[in-house]
């Protein structure tokens, strides 16, 4: 696996180059839409990386990431509106709540594998969505409209430019990548991969698979909730239809699968391919274009699963694997 070896000099310089380009992007691209597209790429890249920790490494195929995303968004927004709590603290609270929700679903599902875990995760996310849709405290189906505050880093609100959002989210994405890289190269990452292979095998090398599966799902939920809080502060409005629906969960899985699950950079590549397609068709084709992105996704996913199950990353790092 590429992930376990130390990076080559070429890979490091490639990453540095990409990072430099990303840092310079807002200085040269002024339009609101190109900035928005990049922000959506980062958002789903981050959620894809978070999904990858539980799905790609530990083999828990969650189709319910929207629940964690929504819990993060709702927690920080509710705390901001009711108690004027800083969204930055709300971010941590959202992560904590999402992790608790993850534990609540993770413990009863600790023996479920493959398709069964996927089904359970969909059911869980739908329960959360329906609950929020009827929960008066958080605005039920009307949702929450966040107060417009002075723009500042402290308030986590920016009105004149999207660039600050861009840089904050790039920071979150890098943090997620660091967490994923740390997890995947540590003992925990080895244990996740053993659990993904087989629970029986994990047990005979002394792994408490219930505990490690719980760790995977809680870390993933925390990062996904961070993305949720960001999204709430970015759009300044949320309702169940915008943060808790199944298509968000599906998009997260697609991003990771297309890019390459089980590799650190895979979901980033997946997001960089898919999000411009979905945002682009949405804008260029208007309401008539709804679903075009899904046709493109569908085709891509079929091609990938038929010819390169390791995803686009597998395609790129093919020669690296052969050398081993």
């Amino acid at each position: 696996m590429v992930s376990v070896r130390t990076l080559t000099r070429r890979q490091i310089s490639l990453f540095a180059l990409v990072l430099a380009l990303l840092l310079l992007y807002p200085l040269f691209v002024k339009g609101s839409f190109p900035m928005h597209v990049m922000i959506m790429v980062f958002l789903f890249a981050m959620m894809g990386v978070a999904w990858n920790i539980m799905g790609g490494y530990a083999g828990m195929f969650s189709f319910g990431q929207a629940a964690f995303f929504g819990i993060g968004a709702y927690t920080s927004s509710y705390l901001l509106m009711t108690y004027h709590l800083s969204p930055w603290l709300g971010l941590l609270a959202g992560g904590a709540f999402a992790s608790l929700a993850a534990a609540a679903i993770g413990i009863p599902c600790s023996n479920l594998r493959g398709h069964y875990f996927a089904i359970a995760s969909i059911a869980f996310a739908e329960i959360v969505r329906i609950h929020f849709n009827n929960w008066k405290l958080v605005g039920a189906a009307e949702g929450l409209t966040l107060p417009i505050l002075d723009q500042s880093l402290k308030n986590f609100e920016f009105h004149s430019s999207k660039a600050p959002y861009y840089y904050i989210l790039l920071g979150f994405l890098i943090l997620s990548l660091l967490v994923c890289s740390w997890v995947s190269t540590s003992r925990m990452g080895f244990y996740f991969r053993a659990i993904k292979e087989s629970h029986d095998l994990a047990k005979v090398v002394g792994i408490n698979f219930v505990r490690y599966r719980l760790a995977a799902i809680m870390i993933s939920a925390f990062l996904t909730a961070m993305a949720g809080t960001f999204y709430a502060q970015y759009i300044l409005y949320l309702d169940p239809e915008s943060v808790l629906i199944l298509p968000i969960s599906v998009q997260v899985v697609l991003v990771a699968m297309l890019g390459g699950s089980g590799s650190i950079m895979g979901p980033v590549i997946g997001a960089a391919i898919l999000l411009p397609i979905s945002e682009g068709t949405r804008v260029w084709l208007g309401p008539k274009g709804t679903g075009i992105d899904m046709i493109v996704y569908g085709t891509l996913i079929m091609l990938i699963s038929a010819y390169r199950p390791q995803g686009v990353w597998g395609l790129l790092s093919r020669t690296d694997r052969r050398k081993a």
Partner: protein
Amino acid sequence: MSAAPLLEVQGITKRFGGLLANDKISFTVNQGEIVGIIGPNGSGKSTLFNCITGFYRPEGGRVLYQGRDITRLTADRICKLGIARTFQIVQVISDMTVLENVMTGAFLRSPSKDVARTKAEEVLRFTGLWQKRNMVATAITIPDKKRLEVAMALATEPKLLMLDEAMAGLTPFELKEMLTLVRKVRENGISLVIVEHVMEAVMALSDRVIGINSGRKIVEDVPEKIVVNPEVIRAYLGERYHART
């Protein structure tokens, strides 16, 4: 002064519905001993294995390890206490290299990656897999996978190693290598329980052999006596051949 047995199995009983898979089986394994378990297909050997290692909950009886009751413990706890096992159908982590597989085992006693790697490399040299350490686990041959499974088990630093048909399907040369490995393991102070159909291996390795048929222990003796035991011959070859002897 006689030390307490390492493993004491007392009257293990396991049912699957109406089928009595293990019927009050008892035996002991002493420190440094190799105990062989033989029996026809479906006689309950693997079930017994699973009851001892925490994969099944027996309905009756107890398993004592170093005098401690481990009957109700989970498989990972039992591994932590020092009983490692392999599977009849070989299991390795397919997207890892040979070295990474063994490191996964070594992590049990050494949370640090560097220490786990050093430990794994030592085990790879010991088991003769050093040359193949950087190969992906799916790319190695079945005999090597069996060896790898043993290596993963050894990396958890067990006091008792339980092998479930580790010799099945090996060529005579591979078998000889495996026998050498098992002897080396014992020389390192690890006791073994081996479930085996390959009589050549059981006879050559075991200090004592336990014969099981239809879920019951039918015999326990030294290898030389096992092969001429009428009960064993009846179980394996049927009434007719038994009558001829």
